[in-house]
């Protein structure tokens, strides 16, 4: 809606940009990136300190709270960050409204599906006793 002269400064700029909304989205992208910076450093350090990469060692590492909790957080932050990032790419390059909505919805399903699978695997190791 064009309110011309009577629009407030905020009213003049909301809805611009390729997603037509998105201040929270922009911020969330940066907050998850900061989380991934920390969790990524944790992952690299953990892998460096593991005595070996055989299955038993890894399963024991991920079954303990000190491994399972940061890894679950990493999975959530990584999928959220990836989903946000891919949405920015879709919003920038896909101009037909219906296609954009469909692609963004598919990405959402893919992200939730992938994250759920990873969290299920972690839960199985932490609570299942099969490790």
């Amino acid at each position, binding site marked *: 809606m064009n309110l011309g002269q009577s629009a407030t400064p905020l009213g003049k700029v909301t809805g611009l940009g390729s997603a037509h909304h998105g201040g929270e989205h922009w911020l969330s992208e940066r907050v998850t*990136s900061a989380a991934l910076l920390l969790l990524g450093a944790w992952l690299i350090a953990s892998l460096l300190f593991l005595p070996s990469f055989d299955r038993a060692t890894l*399963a024991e590492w991920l079954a303990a709270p000190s491994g399972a909790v940061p890894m679950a957080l990493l999975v959530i932050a990584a999928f959220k960050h*990836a989903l946000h990032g891919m949405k920015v790419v879709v919003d920038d390059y896909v101009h037909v409204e219906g296609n954009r909505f469909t692609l963004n919805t598919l990405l959402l399903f893919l992200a939730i599906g992938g994250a759920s*699978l990873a969290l299920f695997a972690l839960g199985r190791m932490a609570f299942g006793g099969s490790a």
Partner: protein
Amino acid sequence: MLVSILHRMTGAALSFAGLALLVWWLTAIAGGTEAYADFTKAAAHPIGLIVLVGLTWAFFQHLLSGIRHLVMDSGAGFELETNKRFAVLTLAGSLLLTLLVWVPQLGAMR
């Protein structure tokens, strides 16, 4: 320019290939000896190694150019000289970090 588009490309690679690999790795560890053997067999295959080294580089490149973007979000680093130096540093840094991770690994595999 190059570093900016690389941020998107490495981000897309990490989102699809990187996260698929993370999910496969975690489900394989949880799945048992056989599932994990399938994973390590694929990872040790020459193509698997190329993918892993490539994703390692993509991770570091995306991480470093992500830090560059955070600095630029704060309004700093827009002078042409500084901006260019920072961009080149992300390229050199990602290459160096990838080598640091993989040279000992590949050395141990020989």
